[in-house]
């Protein structure tokens, strides 16, 4: 069921402005059906992208995306919206590079301005060891055709004058991995863009629809769940839905949803906190990351500095945030940019991250037929949304694991073939 979209453009904006017309709904509010060809659990960027690509690339449009709250209410709306492809391993680089390509064309593909600001991405090195890792990443990136290089403090100063590049600080800036294609994107626009485009192709979005159980048959566990079984449907707070395919695209609840199908994951859930300052006139035109100081910084067009950090050390589903996060953060930010000590922190928040042992996702098929996962994103989920949706949709449609996501299969934890991103992942933004 395709609808004619209300096209977004400057002309349309002017026309409706003149006429005083309102815009139609971005996605329909429909009844939840009793059956779908596929159910995607999680209405964030991953779930919506998966649904979008199922419809667009494979013509599978009888799809419901269910979310227990509202679209983008989880990590999609809580991340710091940084995108980049300068990973350490060839498999990581190839994967995220594809994601970056999709981000590049997203505004026109989805007909919504996602405000992809390709402003460059600096990962600072404060020690010889860190500099060595930066060089390693740069070399792997170059071999994969990804624009990355290691630059010295003088060049860093030119790109980000706010940084203290002298040798005075306790953590002097010795160099940085510079990745010009990296940048920031308006995360909410990605959520809404995918939802709107998927809606136009017939996908249904169901908010406030919580999955209570996954219905299985034939598995080796209780109720037909577990290895060897297959999915028959999902139970929600709005009734049962029958479906042969369930894709778990959740973050924070990935383990709980998978457990409903009898699938155990190598995941622990930790909060990731972020904060934003009051706006000031723009002075920082690039993304700055310091792995050893566990901080990343960007300034929005609105003038706010957006800060993020590493995940909280204690596993928990509670996301109230902590004072110590803001204290550490401020200390580290001022170590890098001592001149902004009078800026004020306006708001802090946190989201949940599903951490895996090798800082890489778990994607694709599971021992339960029809139950696919796109989980374990740790702190990288937002960057990967487009490519994940594209590849998982391909897996659903073809029944085969696409090459790009083969390294991220759940089975790697049975064989011990972990992905080598761990080395570079002290803080992964």
């Amino acid at each position, binding site marked *: 069921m395709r609808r004619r979209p209300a096209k977004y453009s400057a002309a349309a904006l002017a026309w409706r*402005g003149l006429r005083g017309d309102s815009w139609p*709904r*971005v996605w329909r509010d429909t009844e939840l059906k009793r059956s779908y060809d596929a159910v995607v659990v999680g209405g964030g960027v991953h779930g919506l992208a998966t649904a979008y690509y199922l419809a667009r690339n494979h013509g599978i449009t009888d799809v419901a995306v269910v979310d227990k709250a509202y679209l983008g209410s989880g990590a999609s709306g809580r991340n710091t919206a940084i995108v980049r492809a300068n990973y350490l391993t060839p498999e990581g680089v190839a994967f995220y590079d594809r994601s970056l390509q999709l981000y590049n064309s997203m505004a026109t593909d989805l007909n919504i301005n996602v405000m992809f600001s390709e402003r460059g991405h600096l990962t600072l090195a404060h020690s010889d060891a860190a500099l060595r890792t930066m060089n390693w990443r740069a070399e792997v990136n170059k071999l994969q055709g990804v624009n990355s290089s290691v630059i010295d403090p003088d060049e860093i100063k030119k790109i980000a004058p706010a940084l203290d590049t002298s040798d005075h600080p306790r953590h002097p800036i010795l160099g940085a991995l510079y990745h010009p294609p990296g940048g920031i994107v308006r995360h909410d626009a990605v959520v809404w863009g995918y939802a709107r485009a998927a809606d136009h192709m017939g996908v249904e979005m169901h908010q406030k629809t919580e999955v209570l159980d996954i219905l299985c048959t034939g598995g080796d566990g209780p109720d037909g769940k577990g290895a060897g079984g297959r999915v028959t449907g999902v139970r929600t707070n709005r009734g049962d839905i029958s479906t042969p395919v369930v894709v778990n695209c959740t973050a924070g609840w990935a383990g709980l949803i998978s457990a409903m199908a009898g699938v155990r994951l190598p995941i622990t859930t930790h909060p990731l906190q972020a904060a934003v300052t*009051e706006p000031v006139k723009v002075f920082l035109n690039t993304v700055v990351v310091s792995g050893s100081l566990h901080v990343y910084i960007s300034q929005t067009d609105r003038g706010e500095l957006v800060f993020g950090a590493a995940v909280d050390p204690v596993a928990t589903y509670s996301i109230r945030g902590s004072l110590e996060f803001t204290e550490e953060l401020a200390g580290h930010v001022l170590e890098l940019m001592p001149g902004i000590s009078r*800026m004020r*922190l306006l708001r802090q928040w946190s989201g949940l991250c599903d951490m895996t042992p090798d800082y890489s996702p778990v994607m694709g098929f599971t021992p339960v037929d029809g139950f696919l996962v796109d989980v374990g994103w740790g702190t990288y989920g937002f960057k990967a949304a487009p490519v994940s949706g594209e590849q998982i949709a391909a897996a659903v449609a073809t029944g085969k694991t696409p090459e790009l996501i083969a390294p991220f299969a759940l089975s790697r934890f049975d064989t011990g073939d972990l992905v080598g991103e761990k080395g570079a992942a002290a803080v992964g933004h």
Partner: protein
Amino acid sequence: MTMSRLGSQPTEVIDRSTTLRFRWNGKRFRGFEGDTIASALAAAGEHVFSRSMKYHRPRGMLTADFWDPNLLVQVGDDPNVRAGHRLLESGMDVHPQNVWPSLRHDIKAANGLVARFLTAGFYYKTFMRPQKLWPTYERVLATFAPGGKVDLDTPHRYHDKRYVHPDVVVAGAGPAGIEAALAAAAAGARVILVEHEHAVGGHLRYSSAESARTALSELRAALDASDVEVLTDSTVTGRYEDNWLGIVQRNHPIAVERLIKARAKVLVVAPGLIERPFVFAGNDRPGVITSGAVRRLINLWGVKPGERAVVFSANSEGDAAAADLDRVGVEVAAVIDGREGRRVSAAQGPPKALEAVVAGGTRTDADLLVVAAGWTAPTSLLNMAGDRPVYDPDAARFFPSDPPSNVLATGGLAGDGSLDELRAHGAATGRLAAQRASAVAHRLQARTARALEVTGDEPDWAADERTPLGRSPHPELYRSDTHGMIDLSEDVGSKDLVAAAREGYDSVELAKRYTTATMGSAQGKLETVNTVAAIAEARGETIAQVGTTVWRPPYAPLTLGALAGRVFEPVRVSSIHPWHEANGVHTILAGQWIRPDHYGDPAAEVRNVRTNVGLIDVTPLGKLDLRGPDIPNLLNLLYTNKWSKLPVGKVRYGMMCAEDGVVLDDGVTGRLGEDHYLMTTTSSGAASVWEWVENWLQTERPDWRVHVTPVTTAYTSINVAGPKSRELVSRVTTGVDLSPEAFAYMEVRTATVAGVAGCFMWRIGFTCELSFEIHVPAGHGLHVWEALMEAGADLGVGPFGLEGQRIMRLEKGHFIVGQDTDGLTLGPSTGLSPLIKLDKDDFAGMPELAWAADRQLPMIVAIQPDDPGVVPEEAAQIVRGDTNEILGRITSSRMSPTLGRSICLGQVEPELAAGGTKLTVLLTSGQRISATVIDHHAHFDPDGERLRG
């Protein structure tokens, strides 16, 4: 709106005898001690203070306090200063923000003309094509960013922090809060009373009623006489887990802003209420003001807020404002009573002023419109404690629902009442808080090992028997019959919210994100309820159905400087550090250690070690003193090799792997006595290996008898290396036969060195030279170092640093954990498979290492570029021929002063690991060079003859 200074007011807080001079917008102004920046400007007749964010509309004074969205100014290098709150200081240089080119003539005000196109979320709908142009649009949009300017040369000034453990913290020093603090203190509690404003008293401060003044002086006197610690101009910024509170103190005498971290046993939340703006056409026009602002202006600072006023009042505060206006000679042209169903519909006039007010079809000329439309309950701290406040339509505001029992609300947040009722509720709350705090204190004391023994049973958790405050009826006043501004700091109007809801952004969170309502400087304190009301209206639902958004910390913005505080960055140095500093050292930071990297010429240091003798300070080497009969068991469990038969006086190398088989650490351990060993770890692994050892002992093998004591800095560790090291060491050592026969390679002795007894000396070396590592009791480390330097002068002794050592270890082919290995390097990849003894019963990582033995793993190998003059960078990739296929990488590389050629260690795919294999190395320059794997890790002295000499 013509503002001016009134005659002296009985309640005023200004000192008219002290004039302060300052600059505003480049012009000279005067105010009084006690003025805020805004009150001084208002008294001087200023009535436009800023321009709005999106449409650049002129903005006047709205709430005249911390939350006023229109009173953000730049003071010197301090951006976004709340002029409604910040006290005036002499010499301040104050500028308006968000104006271009000037406050008076703002070119961007033209945006107002196209407002109909700049609807909510307009930027999502345009600038898509071409994608390449977005950065250009973006730069233009960025010039619209609101806020002040940072001066990047601003120093991080002195901030420090404080931890406190009060029984009761009271947030808000209005009458209820003060009573709560007094009652809690009277019950013996240690109380901190925190007031956001510059003085205690809450709304009593700006009430001209005699009764209020009497009550205030009474409360102040009681506070003075109590033990309550009162913090004014301070804010409880957040309530975190287990009543961990952040309090920012803005008026500390020595710190710019001090962050106080309080572990409160009970938190009393008494912030009062925040007056809510009303939404109607022109409600953001200068001259439209809240009733509270009017009363503050008149009563605190003696400022006449206008000449002719219309008062829209739905409550007694509005009535009181009308009375105040009348008293000070402002003509009250009309009172529109909201309780009678009347509404103000429009404020009209030229852009920068108010001329007339329209209500019920009647137009009244006025330069001031006072609005008293109700309150927002600032429930932030309760939200942070997990409470979900509920909306009461009869009282037209939210109330606490069910906060945790160590968080108590009082004052206006909890309900309405007469002053006496509010005070009584406050006092009852204080007593309850003290009772509950005593139960917490009892438990803490009983559980804490060091605390004074506590007597008696834990007091019962006191029941809440407070008489609840009533709730006064209040009309639900959110929007009039016209549309107006909802979020003044974000320029979001009620129309925008309605449009957003119609587009499908119809939950509060979606609408907030889409329109940015509540995202500005006041973080919803003024606009949240109106936002919810607008969405409810668009959805045809009630406010209660729509619900509210979660208030997130901090309650009030605080500076990064305050949060960072005095940044503690501990650094460690060895006992020899003063000598290094006096001898031209170039240091390097290694974790927390400041270490000698070299003393000017590392290559020369290497050559000196190879020909004469050198000293290196290796104190950071991790050292664990182990005592007990089960040490061999412990070592067998932690290292991959065998330890059961290490004789006394011998030293052995070992590698540790984690349970997944990945290399964790390495080092040597020596047996000093029957049940006494010294384990060394890498410098960077010292702390984690200690925890690792403790973990195994405490949780897996609690029956083993081993005591572990970290002694890393109990000993100053000096490595004496080089062909002449034996000669040098023998000159200062007594009690040990140093001959090669008596003291062989990989042995340990206890010696007296330079008169210092109890030094451990072992013959090992990372440098591939004859060497003696001496561990000297640290209080004599410098002495021994100097004695060695003196005694070896004729032998050519000199210091060498970490860089020299790195070169020499690379010449020897020793890998470094974490540099030549990475997070996935399994034990066998190091080439040390003979040291992995799979026939042991158990050791950490054994199963993985057993399985790994059958796998093809990347290997660490020694590599020499065919061109000896080329040093491939560490991280240079090893590739297949001319392709981009990665087969490995260089992990360490140096020019060897000893061999006169470049040398490397690298990790390569297993098929390339055999000696003689030709490799292609891609330099960072892009050049590909050829290199060869050599037969063994050691580039130099592969048979270890020098080492054993």
